[in-house]
Every structure is written in structure tokens, then in C-alpha cells.
């Protein structure tokens, strides 16, 4: 364990020397998305406390190790902060915050997926990140529209959020189950 860590540390000068711009910017994007999601989701009191260093460390982890489990942990930290803020600190579920968190979480996730397959020293054609971000923006746009519609619908229905959540959740769960079944079926 220690040997591996030391070997990694000894590689840092080589990595810095060989790193190229586009993979570096992709990792910067992951870090930025993580920090912004942290700021939007977590309660302000906790962000001003001594815990902020640990939280920042969590959300920056996928930027340094995109192939590991860091992105999952970072997303869970953001969701945890959101639950804490809305349930524990009784913050209002504002539309802009839901859209912002959903967008930043997805952007962070998809940029981590790109960084995981993009070597840090690669010569990258600019259409690679361009098309990648284009597809991510389409997804974010559709989600944002869905969010506006769904939150508007709950207000129109007089705040029966539980039923809407149950219906939407069950539909999405069915979709995910079908997706997983088809993916795991081999030819």
C-alpha cells in the first residue's frame, strides 16, 4: 500500500511534464462541478464550519482519480448535503437549486466518465470534448424541462408530492429494470 503510494507520488513530476491541456481542463471541469454542487446543496452553516475541508476533499477526489469510486462518493456527499439542508435545516425545495444540483451532478458524472477513458497526456481532437458536452447538455436540458414540469405539477395538485414521487419513481424504476435486463442479456 505504502509502496504503491510512494510510486504514485514519484510519478507526479512526469505526469506534470507530460500532461496536455484538454484532459487537464476536463479534470478542472469535474472539480468545478463538484465544488459548485457542494455549495448549492449543503447548508451554509456547515459550509462555513471546519468540515468544509473534508467535504471539498471528497468532491475533488474524482478529479484526481476519475477511474475510481470517487465520483460516486462525491455524488452521495452532495445528495446527503441536500437531504440535510432540506430535512434537517428546513430549507425550502427551490426549483433553481434542484435544477442546479441535478445539472452539476450529471455534468460531474459525465466529465468523470470522459476523464476515465481519456489519458492525461493524450493529444485530443477538440471535437471529442465538444460532442461529449453537447450530448450532456441535451440530457441536462431534458431533465431541466422535466423538473420544471414535475415541480409545477406538484404545486398544481396542491402539494401531493408523495403521490407524484411514487408514480414517477415507480415508472423510472420500471424503466431502469428493463434497461438492466436487456443490458445483461448476452447474444
Amino acid at each position, binding site marked *: 500500500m505504502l509502496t504503491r503510494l510512494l510510486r504514485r507520488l514519484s510519478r507526479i513530476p512526469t505526469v506534470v511534464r507530460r500532461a496536455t491541456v484538454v484532459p487537464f481542463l476536463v479534470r478542472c471541469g469535474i472539480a468545478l462541478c463538484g465544488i459548485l454542487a457542494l455549495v448549492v446543496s449543503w447548508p451554509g452553516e456547515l459550509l462555513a464550519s471546519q468540515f468544509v475541508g473534508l467535504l471539498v476533499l471528497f468532491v475533488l477526489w474524482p478529479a484526481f482519480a476519475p477511474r475510481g469510486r470517487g465520483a460516486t462518493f462525491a455524488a452521495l456527499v452532495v445528495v446527503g448535503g441536500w437531504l440535510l439542508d432540506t430535512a434537517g435545516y428546513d430549507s425550502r425545495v427551490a426549483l433553481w437549486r434542484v435544477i442546479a444540483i441535478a445539472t452539476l*451532478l*450529471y455534468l460531474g*458524472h459525465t466529465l468523470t466518465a470522459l476523464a476515465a477513458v481519456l*489519458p492525461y497526456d*493524450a493529444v485530443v481532437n477538440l471535437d*471529442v470534448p465538444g460532442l461529449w458536452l453537447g450530448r450532456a447538455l441535451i440530457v441536462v436540458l431534458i431533465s431541466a424541462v422535466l423538473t420544471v414540469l414535475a415541480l409545477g405539477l406538484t404545486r398544481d395538485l396542491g402539494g401531493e408530492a408523495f403521490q407524484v414521487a411514487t408514480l414517477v419513481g415507480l415508472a*423510472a424504476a420500471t424503466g*431502469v429494470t428493463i*434497461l438492466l435486463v436487456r443490458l445483461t442479456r448476452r447474444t
Partner: protein
Amino acid sequence: MTEPIAPGWAPTRALGRSVLLTGLLLLLGVALGRVDLVLLAAPFAIGAALNLRRTPQSVPEVTITADAAHLVEGGAVQAGLTVANPEAIGYDLVVVRTKTSPWLRLEHADRPFAITVPSDGWAAIDLPGEARRWGRQDVGPAAARAAACGGLLTCRPVVTPAHGVRVYPVTEPFKATESMPAAAGLVGAHRSRRLGEGGELAGVRQFAPGDRLRRIDWRVSLRTRDLHVASTLSDRDAEVLILLDLLGEVGLSGGVEGSASVLDTTVRAAAAIAEHYLHRGDRVSVLEYGAGGRRLRAGSGRKQYLTVLEWLLDVRADPVDEEYEPVLGAHHISTSALVVVLTPLIDPRSADMLAKLTQAGRYTVAVDTLPEDAAPPVRNQWSPLATRLWRIERENVLGRLREHGVPVVAWAGAGSLDLVLRDVARMASAPRGR
């Protein structure tokens, strides 16, 4: 609708993350009655659904291309990688890496390339560069790994075998104006020492029965009132055997513009000597003095020159255990051939071989290929002294060889062999008593 994942493709951690976060957020949303949590899961579910509606079935195909033209050391190489996509959906990202020979300086070849490849299309990566050293230099093997479906699926690496580029040795200018010691054929460009049909005037003599009328020298005949004919020396070709001593490699090769190792000098000098004599119409053969003992049969003309160049590409240091001696007998070598031995003279067996060839009456010329600055690595304070002793001992060997009648000359390109060829030719004209 979503297709099953084809063999060769595997889900990435990003797909696992999508499924985990979607499931967890949905469960929490339903359990806590929080529609906002369901909406946080929406981009992950929508992204996975959009990206996975069509999955790739086959892996990318990588092809390595490289110049097939006559490429000489220091020349420009145009290599390239082509990635083809036989799929109906495009690859979001293909990472291509290639290895290259250290003697091919190709632009960015030490880095991976990240490109997109459209459906049913291809993308090319140009690798322009320069060939630094003779030999068969490889471009490749190349490996490609594709990511599709927004990075949710990646394929196993596809590896393409290396593509060889033939880099011919640069032929240092070489010229030898001295006559060959033993021109033996019926035709050729060398002035022989025998009278016959040729272009070189040997003298004027009285007409004798059998002389051709066109040989009559009318000016001398009128002056002397007797028929005289101009006699000429016959033109002959010769066989040149280039013997390459491959018992060891000394020195570091720095490529075409850098320092030359023993093998570099050997190969470049062999190419230059072969070019020179083949251009003059002689027959040239090449032989290795090493464990392999490869031999190229004697031939003449441009075709033989190209064959020699091709043959030289496979020259490697070919050491033999010290207790064995490479099989090379004087009987393998034509008595009339000029034997040019390219040797660093660092192995005692090379000196023995030279002495034996000369003793057997072969016209032998040794070309010293050892770099001037060659020295064993410095290991301790005694190394410089040991190197000096070794140098002195080597000078002794060279001196003894010269005493045995083996001319040794350092390779210096043009005119390198003129002096020694003159000596060899003089010796050849003497009666052979051995």
C-alpha cells in the same frame, strides 16, 4: 430499444454509477415522498436511456500505414494510423497508442491520441517524422480502445501488429581508383595486367599474324616503314567479397547525424563499397563473420546493389562463444576475389581469420571500423589504465597483421582503400609461391 452488450464491450464504472445513483435516489424519493430526489435522478436515467438506446456490436479496426518508398537514413517518413468504425453508431472516443522504433522520430508518437470516429467511417492520424538509423524499423504495434454510449461502454483494446519500415543505410561517398589486384572475368571496367582487347594502351609492337587490321597504328607504321599495331590491356571485371565481422558491437549509435557504432560503420561502409564496385560492373558478394554466417552470392548490376542493401538491413551483432570459432575457411572464398574485411579487430579470432586468409593467398584488405573514441566503460580508478593497455595491445595486433601482409586501414570514406589496394595489387603481380 436497447440491445444487449456485444462481446468485446464492457460496461464502465460510469454505467454502474448511473444505475446506483438512479436506483438510490428513486428509492429515497419514493420512501421519503420527495419528488425533488426523483428529479435529481432524472438526468442519470435519461442520460443512460439516451446513450444506451443503441449499443455497438463490433470493435474498431486499426491499420498502420508507412512509406514504402526507398527510404534512406535521415529521410522523411510519413507514417499514419487509421481507425475504422464498421458500426452504425459512432464511437464517442477512440484512444489510439502506438509504439515506434527508437530510430524513427515520429511527431507525438509517444503520446496517446484521442479521436472520434463517425459511424461507418474512419479517422486518420498522421505521424510525420524522420528515420534516424538504418535497419528494419517498426511502427507499431498499435492499440486502440473505444468508448461509446457516452462513456458507459468501452471495448477491449484492439491490437494491430507492427508495420516494418525499411530504412537503407546512407552510403558514404567512396571511390577507389586503384586497379583491382586480380580482375578475373571476361568483361568489365578494370584495366588488367594482361594484353588483350581493351581501351588502355599497353604499347606499340610489330604486326604479327592474327592481329586485327583496325589495330594497325598507321602513324608509327609510316614512320618506321613497317606495320605496327597498338597493343592494349584487356578490360576485366572482378569479384569483391565484403566480409562483415559481427562478433561484437562497440560504441553507441547516435543515428545518422550522431556517433557511429561499429555496426553503423560496417553497414554504411559495406553499402558504399558495394555501390562503388557494382557501379563499375564488378561482381560483389557479402558474407557475415559471426554465428549466423549469412552469405549473399556474387552478382552484378543495380539489382545486386538493391539486394545488398536489403541484405544489410538484417545485419545484427552476432557473437559466438569464445571457445568456438566461426566457420569460415579460405576455400569458401574465390582465389581471385578481393576480400574487404570490415572489422573492429577487438576479437582475437578476427585477427586470426585475417592472417589465415592472407596466408591462403587471398587478396585481403582489412578496414578498421572501431570508433576513435571507443573505450570500455569506466568502472573504477583502474579503468583508464586498462583502456590504455588494451589500446596498446590492439596496436600491436594491427602491427603484427601488417607484418603478415594484411593491410589495415581505417574507414574514412572516399579514397579509403586506394593506398592499400595499390599495395595489394603490387603483391598480386608478384609470383605466387605459397
